[in-house]
């Protein structure tokens, strides 16, 4: 016997079977654990990195005050954290826009280590308070240029809406090359 079955019916039947055989749902506690920010999971590591990042500000003070001749802008202090080492750097913000609470950012990482992976995690640290604001993945496009998009809290969106690339940025970066660093 041969039966002609519409493909939509066949796929929906498969979907229903998969739903019926779904494994147990993960609990809220486990899911919330998965989204706990790394600075809460690794507080000692964070403390160490934040202190070093604070020191970079002093080290790059001259560079911040003296904009690059190619495109005048303030630089953002960056600490690149890897599993085995940390390195100091800075970033030039090339594009920044906040619309509908969404941040779109493009930056050039100076002196980026050659073997940095194509996607890194960027943690925004408040310039004013030294507290972590949020973190988001950034993907390299060309030549140490990274692109990043992130949803902002209403408060941050309001504060950053008027920011221009020429402004002094209200944040610093901890760039994590892998999520265990």
């Amino acid at each position, binding site marked *: 016997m041969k039966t002609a079955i519409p*493909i939509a019916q066949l796929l929906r039947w498969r979907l229903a079977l998969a739903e019926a055989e779904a494994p147990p*749902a993960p609990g809220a506690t486990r*899911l919330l654990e998965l989204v706990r920010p790394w600075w809460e999971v690794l507080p000692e590591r964070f403390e160490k990195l934040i202190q070093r990042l604070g020191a970079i500000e002093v080290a790059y003070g001259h560079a911040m005050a003296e904009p690059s001749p190619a495109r005048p802008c303030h630089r953002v202090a960056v600490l690149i954290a890897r599993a085995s080492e940390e390195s100091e750097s800075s970033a030039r913000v090339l594009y920044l826009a906040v619309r509908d609470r969404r941040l779109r950012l493009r930056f050039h990482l100076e002196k980026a280590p050659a073997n940095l992976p194509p996607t890194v995690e960027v943690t925004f640290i408040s310039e004013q308070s030294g507290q972590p604001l949020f973190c988001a993945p950034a993907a390299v496009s060309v030549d140490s240029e990274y692109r990043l998009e992130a949803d902002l809290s209403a408060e941050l969106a309001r504060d950053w809406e008027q920011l221009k690339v020429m402004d002094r940025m209200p944040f610093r970066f901890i760039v994590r090359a892998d999520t265990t660093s």
Partner: protein
Amino acid sequence: MNSPCALSRVEGASQQYDVAYYRSPASYEAETIAGLSVMDDIESVMRRVASLGSAGAIARKSGKEAAADEYFREALALAIEAVNQAAEGGSTSARLNILRTTALLALECGDVTETRRLIDEAATLDPSTIYADEWAQLRDIAAWTDSWLIAAVRREPPDEAALNLLVDRYWRALFGRCQVLTVDREKALDLAQESWRRMLRARNSLKPGGNFPAYLTTIATNAWRDVHRSARRAGPLAEERLASLDAPLPGEGDETIVLADVLPDLNALSANKQRLLAMDIDRALEQLTPLLRDVIVARFITGESCAEIGRRFNRTEQTVSGWVREAVRIMKGYLEEPDTPPDKKS
């Protein structure tokens, strides 16, 4: 927020909203029992609460979440004031009405602790509220709307009971979708968890008035696309593949598959046959490139039109129609002749 301006923005629309939801006419009874001046004040406050609540509901329904949030918060603050005022001289029924309105607003704001406190206060005032239908939906978290659960999950820290219920409500549907996309149980589990993780990371921007299951499915599909994005952009071979798919295919595709030894009602098959058929479908889906699998799921499971899919991929409706026909052709080739599966399109 400047309240009068905010109200004027929704003037008219708020008139159509069911204000009784926030204020029962029974509250007027209180006037005859308690001091008139106190109840006049409370009534005036509750009228304002009703307006703000209506405005919040309208804003939420139309996706203006920031405005909805502000309306509901302002309404809740005023309603709590009214609860406190009514405690000094209102009748029991008036106080219960105010407590219920306030509990509803607390739910709209995602404030579970405040909701529980108000429910307990009502039960202390009148123990019959424990069994009353109008309090049942507030008391039983399983009866909460998606909107209330999402509002509770959006808060910092998120309410774990609300999150548990939301996950339970949509886990199976999400897992099913992930299984069809990945054609692998372990990968489906990872993808489903990743989808919840992404949702939680972006929970500040959740819209309680939106279509949550559709949002979750979109997250899962995007996460799955992210995995395959590099493959889709993988150099000249991938470009060539897309180019060839752009070319219109001859003839209209027949969107049915002829299966041997299968009943029209697939659920009537024996468990063993169902298992074998599921494996065959999975293998047929595996023959498709990620792009084609994505498209065929969007077309036949989500029910998107070729034009809608085309807009997402920045392609014409005709191109997507070609992709769909190509996917169907490959699946037919595999399922109708399982012994001689066609070469994977690459």
